[in-house]
């Protein structure tokens, strides 16, 4: 059998498709007599746009539409005219939507005129290789481009078998996708490692795949959806991806000069935190929350193999949360390699300073700790399991260890009030030396999240997100099963508090590059110096002595007032309760402490990372601009 694995726009063009890589390796192992080929449609689309637009539509535009418009559905819309065989389909709807929301659709519009020809050429390329089965993997905005190509393939060669799988096919979404698109023969719902080989065995034998768990298939004109299995794929059965054909495609591509290829690896599936406390807004794990991880040494063997084979040191892990065991095996192995890796990892925000230091040493220099908020009340409402001061600690330690920290400030949780935000917003100017959120965003209702599954949590009214109206020509009851995002009446804060939060997040972002707040302890001295060079604050150095200095150090770990008082009492010569209260008030006002309402945490850092804004040296030879300068108090050890 000849099998074609396809990843269509908007797979990020600098990344191989993990799904294609995994399935290729799986099929090589389980069906050695088959011939497996790949079609990197997203990369081809970027090439196609570059050529047809004579260089006007570049890979950066591909990113803008494919990754950054996910809440407006522009990437899907680009191909919807092809899917519905009508160039004007969805155009008026999108224009009206964009005008109302102020959405820029010029790039997507410029791309859309090329979509039909691209689909035709893609079909030519695939059919030239005479596949028996074409398998599409679809996540986020890959649905419509994949459906458009699948329809064209079946129109030209009805005997071809078309299979869909991927995150967009999980649960009811997969069945809706199947029953509304007759040209899709099969939809694999959930993980594919067991289901796809079982399906291919049926295709070989010409038998009905009625026993393949989760599979959708056609029984005459009836779309059948087999019951989904509760059995998850064991880590030992998750293959190591094969990216050889992707590498060939990248090497031959004129797009290569525009992108910085990275490897994608998978250590774990599911979420160990979500098994116990599912964050109320999160639907990312779909229907398979059960946490499973490859042993750390096996993951390192995979990384070792891929790095050597592809000569690439940039690695993106797709794990929704790092396996804590990796701090004992995988990360030390990565650190011991002494390779200059640059890895991205999603972690929980309660890591210790030592764990963050290990991440940095292992080359996992880009982390996504799921900070989400600095308000205890909002964090409690989302069942995040961390406090505001703990999140501040994480941000502070990221500075100390030069870790890039990606996060967004989320709001709109049912039950939150203006009061939950007032203190945080007031204190945000003091945080300007720490890495800012990408923005403040209202949460959206995601399928598979507790907020979706349980309307009593605060979102009883919901309908498919408005953007899907310019993406799919389907009735709302079908969209309700097909899509991932839903619109709801806004919950939680709004009005002035929402505006203040957004403005404070913007100011933080703007002021960050030029801001530092650095601790110095002169050798042999118990005095602490805090050099304040934050945007919006007086340029000054605070000198702390005695219990004031000790208190600031104790609060690096984040402590309640009473815990701090106990520690200072144990130190001897403690302040009175009134003195301590006065000092805490004053130090918060100076922006040296963050108060989350339960505990206090110190804000100054010991080190300043290089900020990536262009760092010119000042005329006197000192570093100008954003980065830590010698006069900011930061000292190298030794």
């Amino acid at each position, binding site marked *: 059998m000849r099998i074609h694995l396809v990843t269509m726009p908007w797979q990020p063009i600098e990344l191989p498709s993990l799904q294609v890589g995994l399935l290729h390796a799986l099929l090589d192992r389980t069906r050695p007599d088959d011939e497996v080929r790949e079609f990197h449609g997203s990369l081809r689309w970027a090439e196609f746009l570059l050529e047809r637009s004579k260089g006007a539509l570049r890979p950066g535009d591909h990113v803008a539409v494919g990754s950054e418009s996910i809440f407006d559905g522009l990437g899907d819309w680009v191909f919807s005219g092809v899917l519905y065989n009508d160039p004007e389909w969805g155009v008026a709807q999108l224009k009206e939507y964009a005008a109302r929301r102020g959405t820029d659709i010029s790039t997507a519009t410029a791309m859309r005129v090329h979509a039909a020809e691209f689909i035709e050429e893609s079909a030519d390329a695939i059919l030239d290789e005479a596949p028996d089965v074409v398998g599409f993997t679809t996540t986020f905005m890959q649905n419509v481009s994949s459906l458009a190509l699948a329809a064209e393939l079946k129109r030209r060669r009805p005997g071809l078998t078309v299979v869909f799988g991927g995150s967009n096919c999980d649960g009811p979404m997969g069945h809706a996708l199947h029953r509304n698109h007759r040209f899709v023969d099969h939809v694999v719902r959930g993980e594919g490692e067991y289901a796809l080989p079982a399906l291919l065995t049926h295709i070989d034998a010409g038998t009905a795949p009625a026993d393949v768990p989760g599979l959708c298939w056609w029984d005459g004109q009836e779309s059948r959806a087999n019951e989904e299995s509760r059995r998850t794929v064991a880590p030992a059965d998750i293959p190591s991806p094969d990216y050889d054909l992707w590498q060939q495609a990248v090497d031959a591509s004129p797009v290569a000069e525009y992108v*910085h290829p990275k490897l994608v690896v998978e250590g774990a599936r599911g979420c160990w935190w979500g098994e116990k406390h599912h964050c109320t807004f999160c639907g990312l794990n779909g229907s398979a929350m059960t946490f499973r991880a490859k042993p750390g040494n096996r993951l390192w063997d995979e990384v*070792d193999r891929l*790095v*050597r084979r592809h*000569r690439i*040191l940039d690695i993106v892990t797709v794990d929704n949360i790092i396996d804590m065991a990796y701090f004992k095996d995988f990360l030390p192995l990565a650190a011991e*390699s*002494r*390779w*200059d890796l*640059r890895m991205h990892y999603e972690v929980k925000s309660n890591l210790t*300073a030592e764990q963050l*230091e290990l991440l940095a040493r292992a080359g996992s*220099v*880009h982390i996504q700790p799921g900070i989400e908020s600095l308000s205890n009340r909002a964090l409690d409402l989302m069942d995040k399991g961390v406090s505001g001061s703990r999140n501040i600690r994480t941000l502070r*330690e*990221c500075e*100390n*260890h*030069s*870790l*890039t*920290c*990606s996060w967004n400030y989320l709001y709109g949780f049912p039950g939150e009030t203006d009061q939950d935000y007032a203190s945080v917003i007031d204190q945000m100017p003091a945080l300007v030396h720490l*890495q800012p959120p990408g923005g403040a965003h209202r949460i959206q209702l995601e399928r598979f999240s507790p907020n979706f599954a349980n309307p009593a949590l605060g979102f009883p009214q919901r309908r498919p997100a408005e953007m899907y109206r310019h993406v799919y020509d389907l009735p709302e009851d079908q969209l309700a099963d097909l899509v991932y995002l839903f619109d709801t009446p806004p919950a939680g804060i709004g009005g002035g508090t929402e505006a203040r939060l957004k403005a404070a997040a913007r100011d933080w972002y703007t002021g960050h590059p030029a801001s530092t707040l650095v*601790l110095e*302890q002169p050798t042999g001295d118990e005095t602490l110096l805090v050099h304040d060079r934050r945007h919006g604050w007086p340029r000054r150095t605070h000198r702390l002595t005695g219990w004031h200095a*000790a208190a600031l*150090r*104790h609060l*690096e*770990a984040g402590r309640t007032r009473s815990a701090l008082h106990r*520690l200072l009492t*144990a*130190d*001897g010569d403690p302040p009175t309760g009134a003195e301590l209260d006065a000092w805490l008030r004053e130090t918060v006002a100076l922006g040296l402490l963050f108060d989350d309402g339960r505990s206090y945490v110190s804000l100054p850092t*010991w*080190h300043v*990372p*290089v*900020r*990536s804004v*262009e*760092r*010119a*040296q000042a*005329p*006197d*030879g*000192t*570093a100008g601009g954003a*980065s*830590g*300068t*010698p006069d900011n108090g*930061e*000292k*190298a*050890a*030794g």
Partner: protein
Amino acid sequence: MSPLPAPPTRTAPALPAGWVPHRIRGRLVTVDEPLRLGAGGRPAAEAVRFLRECQSHDLVVRWLPATDDPLFTGPAHEVAGTAGLLRHLPAPGPLPGEPAELTTWRERHAYGQLYHRRGPDFVTVMDRREPSAAARFTIDDPDLLAAFRTVQDPTAVAALDAVGREAVDLLAAERLARVTDGWAVALPPRIRRWPVPCTDI
């Protein structure tokens, strides 16, 4: 006194000793004598190595060019060529009457314009000294890789065998090594500290 957590430390960097007299205080390095980067030969190669290692450790360097050095007194195109080649290294401090190209160096220098990363049996190089002509290299040919490693330290070209000389010529042609008066030295610092955000370089 209850125990306080030890502050996170940064290891003091080991800088090349001997050729470039300097003092280091925290992250500030002050070079005690004017450098002669334009003169070529071993002293220039050693000075380049020193600045390269300072850059690799994200140190701020105060240094001045010798005013009788070709980098200061030479024809504009030669000064521009050298300054452009070394733009990724800490720039010289200002001096009255300095060539405009040195001012440009100071203005255009930025962290991460040229750096290398080490893998198991290869090295990758990112070159953004000329933003309009950014380039990536993967050095995995054994001879080229050996030469790149060798010229991390200033090396007399005459001491290399024919294969090594050819490899150094190739590195120089790609502006990844500087060869002057028979001495070669690699130009891309190893990246030891990623900026924030790390994805920007």
